[in-house]
């Protein structure tokens, strides 16, 4: 996601607060996110709470509610997909509200751009490692305001000055030991005006933030009771699955459904524009029905496209003009001419599928009065819009019930499967659960783009970096996802993130980007987004420059990081912890990489062993992270560990290729994923910090590949410039 991760919170971005009463009695607090541009809370309260079934009825949903039993209801603007965001946000709220985590009941936010837009992303989404960063301050303020109101209500009741009272564990305590539960105070609190100045707790007063705590969603996930979209059942619901044209842009020509109709449990065969669906009494009937269909496609104009054609386009783009200039400083062309030496290199990363373990799944019901979705989505508003378009209804007739997500990694920022589910549901008078087969999921993903980057560095007599020219070619995700966000010159802020502002000091810089629309497949967000590419490219190149200068790769980097003391610190800490500089047996080597993105600083050191026949063993990964204020250290560690190995999986094994317009990988037997037997230990060092919280969900994913190829170079002397490593003949032992 393209976010300005370094922007401070300006006063104009401060949230608005509003207080009101719950319909059934109780207190509600609204916290607005800045881009709404108007006082949503007033509008919401004027309209009054509604029944919660229609999108305009999000009034009540917008708030933190406390009922007369003292239960806290928190409508979370971020979806839980394993990153722990909902628990983290609840922790922030509980901290300021002075309640225990167990007192909070979480509720998924419905689609509502005015209420739930992410202030960094500027739309309602869970992505870009923004959840904590965007909500940290507004949520604290909302929790603190509620606490203050409750204290004021108690003060009124007891006829005592508010500053003699304090809140603790869901109760307001008086000086003489008397106390009132929040539930007893909510009605009075709801009548009070919004507090003018809300004092936030000081870090010394934190009792939850910074402490290890267990996530709220995990108990149901270890005993099988957690319900993901794929697990839902509605009265009368039937099960659907689809076969979509194997070539993008192709159309359904004809279907012989006679054999499918013979499959026990098959109910309907439904023809869509570019797909055919089978509806059955159970998922197996739908799957078996699909296999029994004889389908003929009009494959369209992409049927002869292969990976080679797309790669040619990318290289041609680099040979052409500079494209859109993202950043320019000094005079790199002059510097290259005058430099004592220059160094050029080109790096390449493949298309990637997301391969979330829960395949694309959506429950949809098209009724005369409404379209209702039950789906795990990172983008509720886009889901609503997509469903409205598919059903030919106004968006306000679409209800979105967001669900737990069985892995997303960016895939559920897309709504193609929702469109398909609604198109099917529109043809029947019962709810339909669409479940894609793994094969459909792999072959009809929207893929992380294939990129080729070309560098030319100007170096002084000692091999020190004077500057570089960096030209990026690849598909623009933003141009497809949000065309309006791309300026006329095609500069995609996501594609150049990190690359545009390298953390290394240099006098001359030119960074440019040429968008190359892919053929025969679509591009989308993938965990790590633009920085996943940039970090691989930059950290590979700087490593090569260090080796060329015969310098230690850590020292070489540190020398250029004077402006980033936090980067220096994580780099030193990771190096120290990994035993950087200590001798290793032959065949082993360490590689390092460092980055600043998503508001966090991360350094990673990888130790590998490269044996005969390119037998590669990743022995150890050590990371040090400075992500500012840590909400839950366990979650930060878990995200860096998991995110790093997620990135390792792709760096080692993954590449989506195309032949005759078709994606050639179909399932886990040909789109290999990291297994426990491949997974090295990952040690995470947390740097104490009181800076604003940074994102951690994607940082590790983005940084592992360069550290890995740098380690391979150190161990074997061979530089891998194109991912994945298996492509270069390595195999994991």
């Amino acid at each position, binding site marked *: 996601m393209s976010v300005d991760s370094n922007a401070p919170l300006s006063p104009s971005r401060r949230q608005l607060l509003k207080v009101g009463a719950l319909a059934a009695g109780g207190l509600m607090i609204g916290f607005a996110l800045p881009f709404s541009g108007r006082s949503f809370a007033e509008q919401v309260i004027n309209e009054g709470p509604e029944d919660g079934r229609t999108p305009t009825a999000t009034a009540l949903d917008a708030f933190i509610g406390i009922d007369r039993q003292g239960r806290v209801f928190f409508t979370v603007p971020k979806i839980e997909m394993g990153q722990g965001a909902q628990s983290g946000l609840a922790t922030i709220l509980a901290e300021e509200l002075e309640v225990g985590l167990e007192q909070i009941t979480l509720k998924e936010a419905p689609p509502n751009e005015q209420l739930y837009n992410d202030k960094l992303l500027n739309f309602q989404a869970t992505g870009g490692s923004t959840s904590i960063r965007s909500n940290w301050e507004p949520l604290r303020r909302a929790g603190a305001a509620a606490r203050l109101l409750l204290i004021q209500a108690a003060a009124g009741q007891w006829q005592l000055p508010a500053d003699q009272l304090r809140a603790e564990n869901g109760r307001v305590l008086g000086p003489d030991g008397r106390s009132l539960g929040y539930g007893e105070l909510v009605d009075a609190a709801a009548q009070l005006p919004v507090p003018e100045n809300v004092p936030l707790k000081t870090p010394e007063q934190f009792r939850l933030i910074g402490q290890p705590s267990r996530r709220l969603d995990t108990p149901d996930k270890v005993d099988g009771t957690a319900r993901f979209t794929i697990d839902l059942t509605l009265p009368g619901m039937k099960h659907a699955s689809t076969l979509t044209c194997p070539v993008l842009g192709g159309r359904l020509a004809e279907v012989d459904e006679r054999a499918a109709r013979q499959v026990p449990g098959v109910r309907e065969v439904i023809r869509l524009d570019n797909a055919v669906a089978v509806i059955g009494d159970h998922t197996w009937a739908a799957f078996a029905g699909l*296999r029994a269909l004889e389908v003929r496609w009009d494959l369209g104009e992409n049927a002869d496209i292969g990976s080679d054609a797309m790669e040619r386009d990318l290289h041609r783009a680099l040979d052409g003009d500079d494209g859109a200039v993202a950043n320019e400083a000094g005079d790199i062309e002059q510097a290259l001419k005058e430099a004592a030496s220059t160094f050029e290199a080109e790096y390449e990363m493949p298309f990637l599928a997301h391969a979330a373990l829960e395949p694309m799944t959506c429950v949809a019901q098209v009724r005369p009065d409404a379209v209702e979705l039950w789906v795990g989505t990172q983008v509720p508003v886009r889901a609503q819009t997509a469903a409205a378009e598919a059903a030919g209804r106004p968006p306000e007739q679409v209800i979105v019930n967001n669900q737990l997500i069985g892995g997303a990694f960016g895939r559920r920022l897309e709504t193609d499967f929702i469109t398909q589910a609604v198109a099917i549901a529109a043809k029947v008078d019962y709810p339909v659960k669409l479940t894609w087969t793994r094969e459909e999921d792999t072959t009809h993903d929207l893929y992380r783009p294939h990129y080729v980057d070309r560098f030319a560095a100007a170096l002084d007599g000692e091999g020190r970096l004077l500057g570089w020219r960096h030209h990026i070619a690849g598909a623009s995700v933003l141009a497809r996802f949000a065309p309006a966000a791309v300026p006329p010159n095609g500069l995609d802020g996501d594609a150049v993130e990190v690359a545009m502002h390298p953390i290394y000091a240099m006098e001359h810089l030119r960074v440019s980007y040429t968008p190359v629309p892919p053929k025969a497949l679509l591009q989308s967000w993938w965990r790590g987004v633009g920085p996943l590419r940039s970090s691989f490219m930059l950290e590979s190149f700087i490593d090569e420059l260090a080796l060329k200068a015969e310098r230690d790769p850590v020292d070489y980097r540190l020398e250029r990081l004077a402006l980033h003391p936090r980067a220096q610190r994580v780099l030193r800490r990771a190096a120290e912890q990994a035993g950087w500089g200590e001798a290793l047996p032959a065949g082993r080597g360490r590689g390092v990489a460092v980055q600043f993105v998503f508001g966090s600083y991360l350094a990673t050191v990888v130790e590998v062993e490269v044996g005969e*026949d390119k037998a590669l063993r990743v022995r150890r990964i050590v990371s040090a992270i400075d992500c500012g204020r840590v909400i839950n250290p366990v979650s930060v560690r878990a995200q860096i560990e998991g995110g790093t190995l997620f990135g390792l999986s792709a760096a080692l094994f993954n590449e989506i290729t195309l032949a005759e317009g078709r994606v050639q990988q179909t399932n886990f037997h040909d789109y290999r994923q990291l297994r426990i037997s491949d997974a090295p230990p990952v040690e995470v060092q947390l740097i104490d910090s009181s800076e604003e919280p940074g994102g951690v969900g994607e940082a590790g994913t983005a940084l592992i590949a360069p550290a890995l190829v740098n380690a391979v170079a150190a161990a074997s002397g061979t530089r891998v410039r194109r991912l994945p490593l298996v492509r270069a003949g390595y*195999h994991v032992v």
Partner: protein
Amino acid sequence: MNLRTCLRGVFGLSLLPLAAVAQTAPADQTLIERGEYLARAGDCLACHVVEGGRPYAGGLPIEMPFGTLYSTNITPDKETGIGNWSDDDFVKAMQQGVGPDGQHYYPAFPYTSFTLMPREDILAIKAYLFSLEPVRQQNPENDLRFPFDQRWGMALWNLLFLDDERFEPDPAQSEQWNRGRYLVEGPGHCAECHSPRNLFQARSGSKHLAGAEIQGWNAWNITADEEAGIGAWPDEALARYLRTGVAEGYGVAGGPMAEVVNHSLRHLTEADIDAMVVYLKTVEPQPADIGRPAPRELAAEVPAETAHPLGRKLFADACASCHQWDGSGRQTPYAALRGLRTVHDADGRNLLRILLDGGHLEGPDGHHLMPAFNRHFDDRELSDLGNFVLSHFGATEGRLTPEGVAERRKPGS
């Protein structure tokens, strides 16, 4: 391209006769049904279709040592198929390998077996084919090297190698044995794969059903030899193997044999399968290098020691879920590895083929699939995995090498 991948998309096709659109006068329904049964027994579809294509419309490339042949369109289309063929034309093609234009076919078309079929059986097949919807589909011309592109050469070949004779029952044998022999040697054309061929691509008469290599697979010895063939298989196991593709502890059909089960054998009557068993158990025993491994009792746990640690790891990753460390195949006997010749062949021919290409079988209890791991594993990984499987399940010191695997990645090699 190998047969299996070509045929993958065909499973589940409706083969209902479309009498209404047939271009000839509707034939007798019983005759059509008998023809359909015989067409299945002859596994015509194995060759006369391509992946995603219309049944019997042909077009399948068949790689031969001397070039590429393409199977023909045998739907009743008048221009591109056999719609204009007379009964005599069809019989002559099946019995003598000669088309209506006088051109000789190449023996990839197993007329050397079909020649045993009597005229009435052949015409039943024709009646069935003519009951199908005609498909207009022009298939590619054969692409053969000189001198094999000279079809007149086949006339000479036939003179040498074709016995243009019909099946004659052996009165000394039972009716069941004779039925089995007819099915095996005639329409079933088992010998086309299971008998070695000479320099001229003709079947060896002296090593009848003694096993051969076909499309990169071992077509095993199916003589009654107790060591090398099927002599020691219980009748029931052999029948089950033919009917379902699997007889736990004896064999699991893969590659071209899986296709034979899917398209042909599983559709045959129990009586016919039993007849084939009776005949096969009397085929003159022939020796062979590879027999079934001695039964081994293996632990359910991961073996603590192995000479192939990488292979063991990869087996844990991708194989143990189905096959299990004791080779029992927990979910289904289709995954049982114990007692298979495949894990006793030090060259790992079929083992590697199935690892590279995968396989699927339509069993009576559902669809059974082995994924194709050609993209998952590189040459070193496959050779180590193969050697682990051979040593662990077959007590066989495997001879797989990365270089050998690279060679075998070529289709049909």
